[in-house]
């Protein structure tokens, strides 16, 4: 029984290994395409996102100041 179980387990493991060898791993390939232009686009988008976030925070601070001035 033990022998049979170990054989099945080993078979399963080998089949898993086999499957991995047969198929190339595919992950987010868009970012790795030959020109890698998507990386630049992502970087610029992040920079712009950061700048916009900064603008929003300044906008909110000024709104707060305006409200405080109106109260007094």
């Amino acid at each position, binding site marked *: 029984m033990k022998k049979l179980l170990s054989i099945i387990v080993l078979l399963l493991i080998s089949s898993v290994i086999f499957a991995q060898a047969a198929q190339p791993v595919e992950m987010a390939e868009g970012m790795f395409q030959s020109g890698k232009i998507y990386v630049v686009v992502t970087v*610029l988008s992040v920079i*712009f996102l950061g700048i916009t976030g900064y*603008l929003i925070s300044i906008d909110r601070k*000024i709104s707060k100041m*305006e409200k405080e001035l109106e109260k007094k």
Partner: protein
Amino acid sequence: MKKNWWKIIAFVFVLYTIIAGFLFKVPAQPILHESIRNLYFHVPMWFSMMTILFVSVWHSIKYLSKSNIESDIVASRAAHTGMLFGALGLVTGSIWARYTWGAWWVADTKLNGAAITTLIYTAYFILRGSIDEEQKRARIAAVYNIFAYVMLIVFLMILPRMSDSLHPGNGGNPGFNKYDLDSNMRVVFYPAVIGWILLGVWILSLQIRFEKIKRKIYLRD
């Protein structure tokens, strides 16, 4: 949120420009190659500058007719923000020129016109800084600002068209029209212009609000 919808449009349009500007198809042109994509980034700087400086001169005229100091604040802040975009336009144009025309700067009517315009607006700030009295400063600056905007139109729009220029869209150079007809580029270029103008107006509105708060605090103390 309701009155901030145009800020969202500014954000979405500029983000769209960054993504589409790099990934969409562009016409293959000799010398320019991929640098043709600069059209989406360099040209909107000038459109934004022209728009914001128009806001500036509009409020200068308004000040002269109504003498409301708030108009002067808008005019001076708009000139400031407009110059930010002008400086960005000059620098990006210079980089683009280096890799297409072969030099950082060429003695071209359009380029020299842009440089002279920058100097004229620098003089506007020097003029403002040299007068202490608020009403007097506002009035003299407003008159000078009208002169500055007229000079801007002359140096950037009229003179380059009257002589040969390397810069597209002037003299005998049909460059810009050729790309302009390309509908692939239009779908990115127009949103880019609108997006950057709105972003510029956003920055301008922050400047104005800040300046008004500063004035209120100053008057209270």
